[in-house]
Structures are given as structure tokens and as C-alpha cells.
């Protein structure tokens, strides 16, 4: 009897124990990455010939800290006060003056944005300072044709070293520069690659920066005879929304690139039915680039949607004899946009190009990010890009709020030069 009870009890307990025995490992789920509460402006220049301003916009007041990377891995930091209205800016020359000095910005909140405005002699450029990190940066829209200087600026303001591979594609196909296949960047350093020298006479050039170790933030600075264009790298996406400002002086292009090892089918659709689109290829070659010349379609502002089967980047490029500008497309439409840099300098003509795709007119307010600054209220017309010229002192940026999702692009005309930048979408 005892044996029987023993068999029942022990066998039962063993049988019960086996399925309950847990596995030897415990799954580790890392916390989701937080929005980076920082921005990096890779191509800040301040010396005898260059001036730069850094504009900061944030939803909450506080203090942003700009940490400049100097020669010899030295750092110098300077606070930028963000007022109650949510804006602040810094004349970089008042803090450092030694040429290229990338800046890392510690923002008071992740819901912010920063922009870099550069003046090189009479030439100007403007670009957003990325608030995200990526291991693959795409920078389409460049050109190394005669008369253009083209510098790829790769900033590593971080404490650790970085290793990157720089690849490029042009109308000639994939370019190969062995020296760029593996670049080491020391901690707190910046590398400038003279692409016009390495890859001369490319009318269409797209650059990819792949990060294998550490972190970097790249930007392209294209300097012509009369103007310069500065734009930041972006991570690839399957969809982009593009706003093209009115442009009658020269060419207006949309450049799309990919780093995919396979050909990427893509599509460019205008939001307006009456736009006559040029004939486009159906796919981008592996690692290649495609330029969509929209000069012939119309000179008025227009909006497009780019969709692709794999991550791509899309850049709007404006060029003329005396001016040039480039800016990445917007990732999505939204109701609230922070656009730092608007209003700087006051003598420039600042315009917002707002695409609204709804069916009915909708209100839009534009508030300057400075205490007691102006506020503009407009009604957006549906199905079109609404140009809004800002009259008054809107420095150092604006907050755009609409009742319906919109896409915003900012252009700045200073003399014959033009610059443009996409703002930061807050609710996308």
C-alpha cells in the first residue's frame, strides 16, 4: 500500500514539476529608445569669413546648452536661453571663432528643434540640426559640377570614436573611393570630405554615410559662386511628403536616393491633378539616385508624395545662376510644426509654404517664438500649397499650428540667395 501511495504521490509531483520547470534564460526587453533630447549641428562655421547662428525652438522654456567641438578634442559649451515663448538663438562667433566647429545641443525637451544658419561671405545656407540618430544617413541632391565646391561634413561630437563608410552614386552609377570606404573619426572630432575633389563633375550626386561604430551626424555644404546650400542627412523612409516652393529663376528638382542593395520601385505623385509630371523611371537602381526635374512642370509651388518599396531619401533642390538651396522632404503631415531660424536675419524675406490637402479651408496660426512676438492667423486653401510671407520680426522661429494636418516648408531670401528648411513636426 505504501508503495502504491508512494508511486502516486511522487510520480504525480514529478509529472507536475516537469512542465512547470522554467527555461534557463530570462528574456531581456530593453526599454524603448527615448526621443533624443539633443540635436547636432554638424557644419557650424565661425571665423573671419563665416558667421553662423544657431536657433533653438522648444515647447517648454529652459536652457539649451551648446557644446562646441574645438580642435584637439576640446569642448566649449555655452547656454542658449529658451524664453517662455519657446525660442532662443546664439551668434556662434560670440562664443567660438575657429572655423568649422560642430555643435551638440542639449535641449530642454525632446519636443524641440534646432536650425543652423550659415553665412559664407555673401553666400548663405540653412539646415535643420538633426534630433535623431541613425546608423545610415542619406544625403541626396548634391552636385560637383564645375564651379561648385562640395564638402561632406561628418561630425562626431560624442565621447567615443566612430567609424563610417561613405558611399556615393551619381548619374554615372555607383562611385567607388577606397579612401572613403572606412573613415575613422576620433572622439569629439569632425571630418570634412572634399567630394568635388574626390568625385568631380557629377551633375547629380547622392551620398550615403553608414556608421559601423559610434555615432555621427553628417551634412552637405555645397558652395557655388554666389550662394551656398546646406542640408542635413536623413534616415531613409518609405514615404516622403514634398513641398516645392515657387521657383522661376532656374531648375527645381526632386532627388531621390537609396542605399538598398536591390532596385527599389518608387512612385512620385503630385497632389494636384493639373500638374504635368515628367516621365520617370519606375525604380531606383541598387544604391542609386534618381533626379526628377520639375522645372518644366510648373513654376508655381506644388506638393508631391514619394512612395517607395524600400527606404529612400528625398531632397528638394533649387538652383539658379545666383542662388541654390536644398532641403530634405517632410516625413509626414501634421498640425503643429516648430520652425527655428525663421526671422533671422530680419532683413531677409521669410516665407512659409504650407500644403493643405483637405477639402475645406482651414485656419492656421503662426506664432513667433519670442516674448510678445507677432502672431499671424491665416486661412489655408485646400488642395494646394499656400504661400505665406511673414512680415515683422518672427525671430528666432515660429510655431505653426493648423486645425488639419499640413506640410510646411520655410524659405529665406536674402538678396539673391535662397535657403530653405523643413521644420520639426511635433505631432507626427
Amino acid at each position, binding site marked *: 500500500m505504501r508503495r502504491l501511495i508512494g508511486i502516486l504521490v511522487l510520480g504525480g509531483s514529478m509529472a507536475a514539476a516537469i512542465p512547470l*520547470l522554467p527555461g534557463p534564460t530570462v528574456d*531581456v526587453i530593453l526599454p524603448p529608445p527615448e526621443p533624443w533630447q539633443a540635436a547636432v549641428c554638424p557644419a557650424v562655421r565661425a571665423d573671419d569669413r563665416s558667421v553662423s547662428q544657431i536657433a533653438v525652438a522648444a515647447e517648454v522654456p529652459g536652457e539649451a546648452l551648446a557644446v562646441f567641438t574645438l580642435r584637439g578634442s576640446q569642448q566649449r559649451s555655452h547656454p542658449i536661453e529658451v524664453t517662455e515663448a519657446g525660442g532662443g538663438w546664439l551668434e556662434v562667433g560670440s562664443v567660438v571663432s575657429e572655423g568649422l566647429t560642430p555643435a551638440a545641443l542639449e535641449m530642454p525637451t525632446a519636443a524641440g528643434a534646432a536650425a543652423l544658419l550659415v553665412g559664407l561671405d555673401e553666400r548663405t545656407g540653412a539646415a535643420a540640426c538633426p534630433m535623431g540618430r541613425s546608423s545610415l544617413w542619406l544625403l541626396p541632391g548634391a552636385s560637383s559640377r564645375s564651379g561648385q565646391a562640395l564638402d561632406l561634413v561628418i561630425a562626431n561630437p560624442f565621447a567615443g570614436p566612430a567609424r563610417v563608410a561613405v558611399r556615393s552614386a551619381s548619374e554615372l552609377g555607383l562611385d567607388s573611393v577606397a579612401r572613403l570606404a572606412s573613415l575613422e573619426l576620433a572622439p569629439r572630432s569632425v571630418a570634412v570630405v572634399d567630394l568635388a575633389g574626390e568625385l568631380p563633375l557629377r551633375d547629380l550626386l547622392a551620398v550615403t554615410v553608414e556608421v559601423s561604430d559610434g555615432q555621427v551626424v553628417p551634412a552637405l555644404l555645397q558652395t557655388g559662386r554666389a550662394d551656398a546650400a546646406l542640408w542635413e542627412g536623413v534616415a531613409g523612409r518609405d514615404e516622403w511628403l514634398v513641398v516645392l516652393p515657387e521657383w522661376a529663376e532656374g531648375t527645381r528638382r526632386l532627388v531621390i536616393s537609396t542605399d538598398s542593395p536591390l532596385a527599389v520601385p518608387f512612385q512620385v505623385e503630385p497632389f494636384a491633378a493639373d500638374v504635368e509630371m515628367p516621365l520617370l523611371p519606375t525604380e531606383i537602381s541598387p544604391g542609386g539616385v534618381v533626379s526628377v526635374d520639375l522645372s518644366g512642370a510648373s513654376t508655381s509651388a506644388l506638393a508631391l508624395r514619394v512612395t517607395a518599396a524600400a527606404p529612400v531619401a528625398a531632397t528638394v533642390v533649387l538652383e539658379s545662376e545666383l542662388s541654390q538651396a536644398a532641403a530634405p522632404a517632410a516625413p509626414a503631415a501634421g498640425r503643429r510644426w516648430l520652425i527655428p531660424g525663421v526671422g533671422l536675419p530680419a532683413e531677409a524675406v521669410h516665407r512659409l509654404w504650407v500644403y493643405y490637402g483637405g477639402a475645406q479651408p482651414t485656419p492656421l496660426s503662426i506664432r513667433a517664438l519670442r516674448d510678445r512676438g507677432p502672431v499671424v492667423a491665416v486661412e489655408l486653401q485646400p488642395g494646394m500649397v499656400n504661400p505665406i510671407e511673414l512680415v515683422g520680426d518672427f525671430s528666432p522661429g515660429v510655431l505653426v499650428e493648423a486645425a488639419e494636418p499640413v506640410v510646411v516648408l520655410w524659405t529665406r531670401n536674402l538678396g539673391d540667395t535662397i535657403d530653405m528648411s523643413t521644420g520639426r513636426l511635433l505631432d507626427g
Partner: protein
Amino acid sequence: MFASEHSSGDSRSASAGGASVPTDDSVATSRVVAAILAVGSAELADSLAAVASQDHPVVAIVVIGRVDAVPPDVAVHATVGDLVALIPGDVTHVWLLHSDSRPRRDALKALVHEIERNHASMAGSKVLVADRPEVLESIGSATDVFGVPYSGLEEGEVDHEQYDVVRDVAYVSGVSILLRRDLLRGLGGPDPLLPPEAAGLDLSQRARVAGGRVVVVPSSEVLHSQDCEHHVPGWRERAGRLRAVLKAYRPITLAWMAPLAFLTGLVEGLGRLLLGSPTRLAGHLLASGWNLAHLPSLIRARRALASIRQASDEELFRYQVRGSVELRQLGSEFGARLDRWVGEDPESLLERSRAAWRSPVVVAAGVGAALVLAATRSIWFDGLPDVGFALPLPDSAWSTLLSYAGGWNSAGLGSPEPFHPTIGVTAALQLVLLGRGPLTMTLITVGALLMAIAGTARLLKIVGCEGPWRYLAGAVGGLGPFAASLGQAGYWPGIVGAGFLPWAIVGLCRPFPATLRARLGWAARTALPVTLTSCFLPLAGPAAILVVLLGLASGALRHLSIALAAGLGVLAAALALMPWTMGTSLDALVGGGAAVVPAVSWWWLGPAAAALVLSVVAAPPALLPAALWGGATASIGVLLSLTPGLGREPTVGLMAAASLGLALLTGACLETLTRTGPRRLVGLAGLALLATVAPSLVGGTANLPGGSIGEVLAFTAGLAPEHGADRALVIGPAGFLPGESRSIDGLGYRVVWAPSPRLTEAWLPEPRLGDDLLDDEVRNLLGGGRLRSGLGLASYGIRWVVVMGAADVDLSGSIDLRPLPISPDFTAYVNENARPVAAGQTGRPWLRMDRGYSGATGGDVRLAENADPRWGGTAPDTWSQNGWANLIGTAGPTVSFAPQPIYRWGAIAAALWVCLLAALAVYGRPGNRSAAPAGEQGEGPRAPAGEQGEGPRAPAGEQGEGPRAPAGGP
């Protein structure tokens, strides 16, 4: 004065029958003064008469020491030194004789003859016991290097003249010594501080160092009443021997001999403690202290000897035996005990040794011990790997004990919570071992595994498994799959506790004695093993109750009183674990910490299931209860350990119980190995279970995983600023981190002191304000949202961040956490914004000390420890809270945590309680006749099984089947 004595003595010898005719001129011309050393309470008359009647004349008889009355013609001197100054130049020898001795008539003559014939400087007599003149007391002796005599005589050895040859010896008994007058003058006589035997050793050694020969003359016989030995405590002789060797050796020999002597004495004392003789350890400590107290006179004596030194230490070594005599005796005693456990009782030591080595039990025990040694071989050479909870002990054991007793708990960001009891018991042992932390950890680990083998074997014997296999079954308890799970989880205290647990059960199985004294001893000896086990496994008591209840249910144990005894043990342990029990909530005890669960493998699951089923089906009836007990304990222990919500302590306790259960099952199965038929299958299943210890032999680290947090953090020592390395934040899967860790979405992290976290940091206290804020900070760090992550960590004194275990954590987006190219196995960052844990207003760092910080006087110091007003020390007004930390106005160069009286008194009470238990255990031990009447020594070697309180039920018809089935089973 001396002249008159001289003539008197001469006339006395003449009147006593005349001098014998000398055999040669030198003997005839030898003029001897007899100095009778007044020792004990012996009457002088006998010795005076014996001296006076010697065949060889003495020129004078004097008495040395304090005496009440002497004949008028006998001079009295306080010391031999006084006598030496007065001896005239024509005296050639001095005969030093104890007053409790009676030399035979020819004793002096023989001494004089041989000392001259051998050109010796000092000669001693053969000493016989006065009331049994056929029994030898001393015939000269060798010593070991520590001065411990090794005569080779057995207790009560009869004199058959088997040693009667004049020979050089290390020392002769101080009872009767003849030595040359000039040598005595140079040596200054015996050391007055030394007791008789040690004085003889001292004089002999100094004589040899001075260039003289020391011989024993067996033809010179002296009867000794041993009165002198009755008045000297044993530790004084020990202290005297130590003084003698400290006096004689050159410095280079002392450099290794002195520490070795202390350690040897310590080991011997601890060994004797295990054998139930606590006085030896105390004697050793007293002897060491006595010599320290008499260091000045020792130095003077060494200087005096140096002036006449003629021989090197090698001359002393020539007459010494190798090794330690005491350790050898201890080994023999252990062997004898083992023999008694085996149940054999041979007559002589030689026979016992031979029989023991032939015994299968001893062979099996040796194999079990060899398994332990193999499983710990890396530990012997390299120490424990500092992983998990096997962290190095702090440098200062005393400081650890003070912190344990209500001081600051430095784990994490600190807390006033009391430490885990493991800290207290390891620190206490470390203190005994002179602060040698690695040795302490090694001894505890290896000792626990050996205890597991011996304890399981003992337990199996109690339940009727008396064959040799039970020692191998014990290996399953210490090295089997469940113990391996504890090791692989890095929970070192679990390994140790599992080793002690069988003894806790054995302690509960003692029969309840009849007398009050024995009952007190029984209670203490029941409580002590549970208490010791609970120091490592605080829930060992409840685990023991579970094991006992299952033993009762299975029929292996019979008396319900065992469960009551277990309850008593739990209560005793709860008192001994103070102050930890005072500061730990039930919730934390039951649900705190990460559960330790068995690593599932068919490697052990298959054999365990097979053994369980086969033993239940086919085990002999006498072994069935033991098999059922083991199987039930193993399976129910594992099952309960999987209960959701249970934390570390209960699961570790249950795993230890399961480990013991598996060992019992193995032992019961192995007992049937010699059977035939289906029962042999049970034995084979037991063999398969035994094979489960094989994986434990691979690493040689007692199943502890590889890797070392000390090695990982070693880089911080080189890069640290002057004030120290501050703290390190280590991140990774919990199994890779030292000690306890906190978790963010399954990823572990914790703060440790760099460069080498200590065992005191292993257990994290309950989170306090700083810990909560740090949790947010680490969350931000892991989220990667901050540009200056290091700045956020700086206020916690975190100077380093280390990501271990290939955790996918990317901190490269920070501008102040600089990655360091240290190793591909982990990622290390230095915080460029780091601040010291303690710093003054100007940022000037304060140094971390054992129990506080020191720095420049004046101003406030911010202390990055969890805020607690007791950091104000004796002036609480100087303290204020600084966020989560402390701001202390400093009047002096140090800040320290004022101990919490309730915890301090709790710790003192616990220590006293353990001492009381130990004292009661000795007072009422079964070996003590007054404590345990005959027939009640439950665990005694000759007690029939039926009187041991426990034994399996053996049906009358099946007695023959069970191996050595207890005859007295009901």
C-alpha cells in the same frame, strides 16, 4: 656562605655511605652542586635525602625557589641565576632536580659518567612515574619546529629498557638535568617565567645553540611524582614552548616559523573544536597573547643568547621531526573518530589505522572527499571566482563586524538596513583567520562541501543505510544538479547552506536525554547546526521542518518530537540572525530577490525519475522509507521552489532541501547495488544519479560560473583619480552582475564600488530615495535620450559604466561617457563629468575609509549616500538632507555613520546567544559522563541503532535483507 655549604655538603655525602670509586680521573674530579628546584607542593625531605644518598658526592645542596622550611645546612636561592653567581670555580657541574623527584642512588653518577664520556654539556635522566616505576614518563625527546615534544612514547608505555642508549636529543626533561657550570653561567639558568617542561626545553635549546651537546642518559633513573604538572595550566606550557623556540631561532627562521606556528595552532585549535575540545583554541590564543605581553623580556633573552651563540638553527633542526606534531595528533584523532563512526573499535592506533584504511567506508569517504577536492581544485589555487554572490571579503573583518552591528550598509547607494547574516558569520571567521579573506572563503566553501558528504552519510546511517555508498551519495547533495543550480546562479551562500543542511537534520534526530545537563546540551546541539545553516540560508529552519515532516510521513523518521526540535532550531536561529531578522520584513524575506530555479536537464531528470520509480517499486522494505523520504523531499522541494511569487531565500532553501532529498534517494538506491534481480536495477539507477555530479567536476569552481567582476573592473584601479575609483554602474543580464541587481524591463543593473565589489555589497537593501531616482536616471541612460548621460550619473558618485553580458545597450550618443577599449567581452565607459562620492564645497574629494570618509576639515561635505541623519555622527545638527543625499557640516577630518543602537545590541545579543549555545553544547555533550548516562549517547559509536532515536522500520521477516538493518527498530 657558599663555602660553608660546600664543606657541609661534602661531609654529608661522606657520611651517607661514602662516594663510589670513579672509573676515570675526569669523573672523579667532577665536583657537582645539586640544586633542587622547589616545584608544586612536593615535600623537600624526600628529594634532599635522595640527593644526599647519591653514589657520586655532591659538594653542596641548595634549594631554588620559595620553600617554607629547609634543613639549616641547606642554602636557599630565589633563582638559579642567584646560585650561579655564588658557585666557586672548582665546581664543574650543577645538577638541577625537581623537588617532586627521587633519583636513584646511581642517578648522578651515571649522569656524570656519561656527560664526561660523551663530552656533552648537558645530560638528562630517564624519568619514571613515581607511583608506577615501571612506566616511562620521559626518555629525552625530539620536537617539531614549533617546540612541541615528540617522544614516541605511548601513554603508559612500560620501560623494558627498550630506549636505553645514550643519545643526542632535542631536549631532556627538566626533572633532572646535569650541566656544566660554565654553560650554566653563560645561559643564566632556567627561564624563571617558564613552567617545568617548557623550562627544560628552553634550557636544552639554548645549550645546543651555545654549542653544547644535549644527551639523555637512560642509566640515570629518576622517579617523578609529577606534582609539578598539577599546578600549571596547559596553556602556560604551550606559551612556554613558544617562548623557548622564539628565543632560540635566528630571525630568518622566525620570519616563517612564527606566523606558521600561529596558523598551525589555529588550525589545530579549530580542529579540536570540531572534536569537542574548545580549550585548545583558547589555549593557543592565550599562549600567543602571553608571549606578546612578555615580548620585552623575550627580546632581552634573545640578545643574551646572541652573545654566546655558537651553532646555527640547523643544529636545532637535526633533532626535530618534520611537520607539526599537533596536526599529526589531530589527524590521528580524526581518524580514530572516523573509525568509531565506522563502528569498529580496534585496540591500538596502528591497528585502527590499518583497519580504517581497509574499510570500504573510509575508501568511500575518501572518494567523496576526492570528488569535492576535484570540484574545487581551481578554488584552491586561484580562490573563488568573484561572480554572483561569491564576492571577496572586505579587507578589515573587524570593520565589517562593526558595520554588521548597526553600521552603514554600503551596498548600492547605502542604507541603514542590517546586513545579511552571511556577512556576519564570514566576517567572524575571517577575523579568526587573521583577516585572510580568500582563505576564509575557500575554507568555508570546501568545508561546506565536505560537510555535505559527511552529513548526508550520517543521516543515511540514521535511517538504516549504513553501507559505504552513503558517502558517495553525499556528493550528490553537495555537487548534484540542484546544488549545481545554486552555483550556476552564483548564489554562493546557497552552496554553503546546502552543505550544512544535512547536519541541521542530523542535529534534530538526537534522542532526548534524561538528565537536565544533558538536555541543555541536547537543546544547544540541536539548535547550533540549524543556526549555522541559517546564517547562509535564513530559511534553512523551515526547510529543515519540511524535510523532517516528509521524513515522518515516509516512515524514515518516527518521532514527532523531531519536528518539535526543528521548531526549537528555528527559534534559536531567529535569535542568532539578529539584527537581520529585526530589519527584514516578511514580504522581503519571502518574495525578495530573484528566485533560484533548477536548470532543467534530462541529464538529471531521467536518472532521478528512474531512481524514484524503481526504488518505490523494487527497493527492499528496509530501505523503502529512506528512498521515499529522499524522493519526496527532492520532488516536493523542487515543486515548491517553482511557486510563483517566491523570492530568493525560500527558493534557495527549498533547493537545498531538494538537493539533500536527491542525495538521500541516491544513498537508498545505492544500498541495493549488491543485490540481484530487479533490486539491482534500483542500485544502477542510484549509480546514474551519482553520475549527475560529473558536470560539477569540470570547472573546478564548485559550480560557480566563470568570469570575474574584479577582473572586469580592474581597469578602474589604473584610471582612478587619487581619492579612489568611486562607484561603477554595471548593466547587463542579472546573471552576469555581481550580487543582487535591480531590473529595468528585464535588464539588470546595479551600483558597486570600484575596483572590487565586496561581499558586503552583494545584497541590495530596500530601495530608498536615491535608488528610486537612480532608477529613473538609468532608464534615461538606457533610453539614450540624453546628450550628457554622465552628468546625470555624476551626482551618485558613478565614475564608470560597464555593460556586460553582450547586453544591447548603446551609450554612444553621449558626449560625456567616453568608451574605453578594455575588452571585447564588455563595454566600459568613463564618466567625464564624474564627481567624487564625497566632496567638499570646493569639489575637493574626501577619501573613503572602512566605515566613513575623511578629508579636509571645515566646510560642508556632500555625501552621495542615501540620506540618513545618522551621518551627522555625534552631532546630528551638522547634518542636512541634500536631495537624496547628505550634506554634513564637518568639524573634524572624518565623517562616519553613528551606529543604530537597536541593531548594535541585537548583534551583540546574537553573538552572546551563539556563545551560550556553544557553551551549553560543550557543557552537556554526550561524551561527558555526567551529562549523558550510559546508553543515552544517541550518536555514540557503540550505541545500538535502536538507541539512536531513529531508524527505519525493519519488518522482522526482512531483517536479513537490509544491510546492517538496525536491530532495535520497533
